[in-house]
């Protein structure tokens, strides 16, 4: 009798990796964005399996809801034509594969040594961090980062407004 968690983990892992490959390999940008959406849903499922239910919901809201919708909006606004050229060249693929191989080897060397702390509390179903635990951490230990992130959001908002305006006298930069 296998653990249903292992079965679900395998399913979600394969699904997420397949969708991630879909993002990279699709010629059409809209199809890439939709693959990204599915991939994020898969990651949200993995979060739920790892008992981070709040983060799973936030992942779907922020990423799948806002980020991918923004991507699709911009793709359709710019009307990017896909499929006329190959999305990537042969030499780039070789170089990319080499670079990715080196990176993966490095990361996996570290990952193989990753073991949970010996004195970590035994994980039971009701031991997962709840909204209250996150709130307590965010408003005590991580109060300064919260303020910084809020400020960052404000600056990003202003930056987008400035970037979206038309600027006179910059037309010679061709």
């Amino acid at each position: 009798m296998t653990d249903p968690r292992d079965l679900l983990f395998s399913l979600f892992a394969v699904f997420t990796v397949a969708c991630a490959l879909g993002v990279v390999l699709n010629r059409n940008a809209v199809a890439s964005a939709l693959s990204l959406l599915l991939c994020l849903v898969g990651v949200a499922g993995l979060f739920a399996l790892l008992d981070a239910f709040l983060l799973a919901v936030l992942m779907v809201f922020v990423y799948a809801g806002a980020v991918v919708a923004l991507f699709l909006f911009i793709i359709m606004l710019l009307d990017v034509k896909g499929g006329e050229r190959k999305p990537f060249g042969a030499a780039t693929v070789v170089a990319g594969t080499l670079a990715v191989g080196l990176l993966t080897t490095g990361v996996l060397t570290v990952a193989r040594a990753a073991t949970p702390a010996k004195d970590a509390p035994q994980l039971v179903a009701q031991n997962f961090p709840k909204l209250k635990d996150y709130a307590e951490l965010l408003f005590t230990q991580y109060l300064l980062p919260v303020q910084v992130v809020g400020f960052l959001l404000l600056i990003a908002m202003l930056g987008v407004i400035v970037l979206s305006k038309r600027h006179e006298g910059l037309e010679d930069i061709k």
Partner: protein
Amino acid sequence: MIPLTLPACITLAAVLFAIGFFGVLVRRNTLVIYMCLELMLVACTLALVAFSRFNGTADGGVFVFFILTVAAAEVAVGLAIIVALFRRRQTVEVGELNALKD
């Protein structure tokens, strides 16, 4: 069948990160490159959640909050830059954006 363990989660995150990295390196469309960057960020959040879960703390989750916020801000600014770029150059192909080369 892959057991739900910390090394399995970290390996999965590494694979996702590698796929995103590969996309950033090989794709020609700026928008797709940007999506692959998002994929790399998501892989990092997965690793953080896994470490958080298997060490019994909520700190990793808090970092995921921050990454989500920064990613949302980053997407808004990045897409605004891409739109501004497209308005000026009428293209988002990285091969044609070589004004700094000559």
